[in-house]
């Protein structure tokens, strides 16, 4: 059995700064305030989305509650030209990449499959089937390698995803080609009801060694540590040193999705224990102690959160389904005649109802 890996931590749950020369990070007061703002805003978005699902405005919502620091930290480590490949839960990364939250909402409202432009935002579309995107990320990294581009690729995955064969394939190929890809695993301790003990006998970060590249476990509720570790890994990838596996050790504070009832498989005291390691509270404490954030700033961020929530609510409720005939769009570059005929039939059928309705 392997030992528990060292946990990279730069900010304790109590908000104390830890000095760690191998993971140094130097952020300006503005940057620190920016991180705090993002954490608060993505949580506020998440709360609103969960409420909207309860009210029937979304089909489903997978909350990021508790994982804000992992996602915001990783998102900030990316450079503009980099490409990220998310799962279905990376709302915090989407936010940092500048994706309009309404694009994510439209996906879970069932209006489209994610309306943002991956090339423009550097964020690929959400991927539902686990862990298909890790192979896409590896291929993308092999591609940019051939272009000689200064681009790095960040592949997101969950702890559960590490059980799938496709992830092993992705890690093997990434290693073989020294592809500039970083595997960012949010170990939120569960794959729906399956606890991490069921997925792995060793700490996930240790798995990387078997593939021949570094594995790091970082406190996933510490935005500074996540940013430092991920930035370093992406830099190494960009410089040709190949992949890194990052295990962001965190916790899914909410249900798996709004359809899930976690009380069936985990104990309340476990959730309470993790609540004390809240990612936002510790940064706030730190910023206050350092005099970087005052009451005015904190209040302004709260107010901005309320505005954002209101915008998301309005925008989501106003979102109409696209005309049904759009289901025939973009299936092929050129619509084959049989499909075009099906489309015509579909339109004629719809028109027959409008006819009858008159």
């Amino acid at each position, binding site marked *: 059995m392997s030992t528990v890996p060292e946990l990279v931590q730069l900010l304790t749950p109590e908000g104390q700064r830890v000095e760690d020369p191998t993971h140094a990070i130097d952020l300006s007061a503005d940057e620190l305030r920016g991180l705090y703002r993002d954490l608060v805003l993505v949580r506020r978005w998440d709360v609103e989305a969960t409420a909207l699902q309860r009210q029937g405005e979304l089909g489903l919502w997978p909350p990021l509650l508790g994982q804000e620091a992992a996602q915001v930290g990783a998102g900030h480590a990316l450079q503009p030209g980099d490409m990220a490949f998310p799962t279905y839960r990376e709302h915090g990364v989407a936010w940092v990449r500048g994706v309009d939250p309404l694009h994510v909402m439209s996906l879970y409202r069932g209006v489209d499959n994610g309306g943002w432009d991956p090339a423009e935002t550097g964020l690929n579309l959400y991927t539902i089937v686990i862990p298909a995107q890790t192979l896409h990320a590896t291929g993308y990294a092999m591609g940019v390698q051939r272009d000689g581009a200064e681009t790095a690729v960040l592949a997101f995955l969950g702890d559960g995803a590490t*059980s799938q064969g496709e992830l092993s394939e992705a890690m093997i190929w990434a290693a073989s080609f020294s592809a500039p890809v970083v595997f960012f695993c949010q170990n939120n301790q569960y794959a729906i*009801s399956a606890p991490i003990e069921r997925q792995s006998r060793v700490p996930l970060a240790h798995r990387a060694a078997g593939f021949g590249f570094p594995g790091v476990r970082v406190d996933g509720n510490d935005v500074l540590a996540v940013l430092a570790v991920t930035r370093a890994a992406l830099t190494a990838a960009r410089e040709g040193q190949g992949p890194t596996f990052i295990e962001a050790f965190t916790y899914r504070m909410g249900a798996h999705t709004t359809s899930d009832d976690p009380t069936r498989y985990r104990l309340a005291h476990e959730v309470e224990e993790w609540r004390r390691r809240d990612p936002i509270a510790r940064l706030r404490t730190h910023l206050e102690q350092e005099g970087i954030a005052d009451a005015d700033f904190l209040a302004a961020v709260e107010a901005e959160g309320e505005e954002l929530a209101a915008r998301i609510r309005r925008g989501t409720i106003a979102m109409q389904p696209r005309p049904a005939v759009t289901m025939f769009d973009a299936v092929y570059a050129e619509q084959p005649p049989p499909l075009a005929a099906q489309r015509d039939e579909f339109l004629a059928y719809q028109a027959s109802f409008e006819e009858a309705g008159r």
Partner: protein
Amino acid sequence: MSTLNMLQAINATLRAELARDERVMVLGQDVGRLGGVFRATDGLLDEFGADRVVDMPLAEAAIVGASIGLAASGLVPVAELQFLGFSHQAFHQIGAQLARMRYRSQGRFPMPVVLRAPFGGGVRTPELHSEALEAQFVQSPGLAVVTPATPADAKGLLQTAVRSSDPVLFCEPLRGYRLVTGEVPDEDCPIPFGRSRVAREGDDVTIVAWSAAVQVAEKAADVLAEEGISVMVLDLRTLVPLDETGLIEAVAATGRCVVVHEAPLSAGFGAEVVATVNDGAFWSLEAPVARVAAPDTPYPPGRIEDLFVPTVARVVAAVRATVKAG
């Protein structure tokens, strides 16, 4: 008799089969402690213990591949795939391994494996949870493909599946899990594969359907009855083996046929139905056999899915046209 919904019928049948035969085991993602994401396996872990109700890691190929080994070792695995849409990573284990094992071993390795999976749309799920993929498995000789539409059939067909020495893909209508209720016999009632069921008698036209499309066909029959069109609804129950005789007789009796399925039109199982009718009932036909299916596009976003999967109105329109033709 008890009145149960689909999930209750499946849950009760699994419980009874686990109690009946200690070689039977249930495995899959979240099937133990959680009782399955839809609760199909609710309570089984407590009753039968972790050796027989096994929470598996997130790996579909592992679930099916391990089931092959478990069966070879003498057990009867009843595996759950969380959604049929996630079966693709296991497709090799299903089509190329599980289905062929008896054949390759010249009968030495029967494969008493059941793969249960919810499938089909209409419940606003995100991408890849709604696809009706049944036809993709029909071309895996050696595998039975079973598609119950009612709780009683879910019980009877699941009993047969668990007791069969051949592998069975047991497709459960997601949309009907809680919505479709019915009387279920309390006693043992295994239903042989390859026997269709006349869900409704009628004289003018035969609608052929399976799984959730059966209820759509029945509702269409209600509408059409008001117009004086008498509709027979034939529920195929199992696609492999196909009840060719029952199908041909049902179509010959009315001389008209409409096939309804949720999967895309081209090479959907409806095409096989049409070909079978053509072979066996051609001279009884008074009109071409019509198909009502999804278009040949990927499954669309939830808010427009109701216009993708066959609706009652589309089935009604197709039946009217078939009755008018010829």
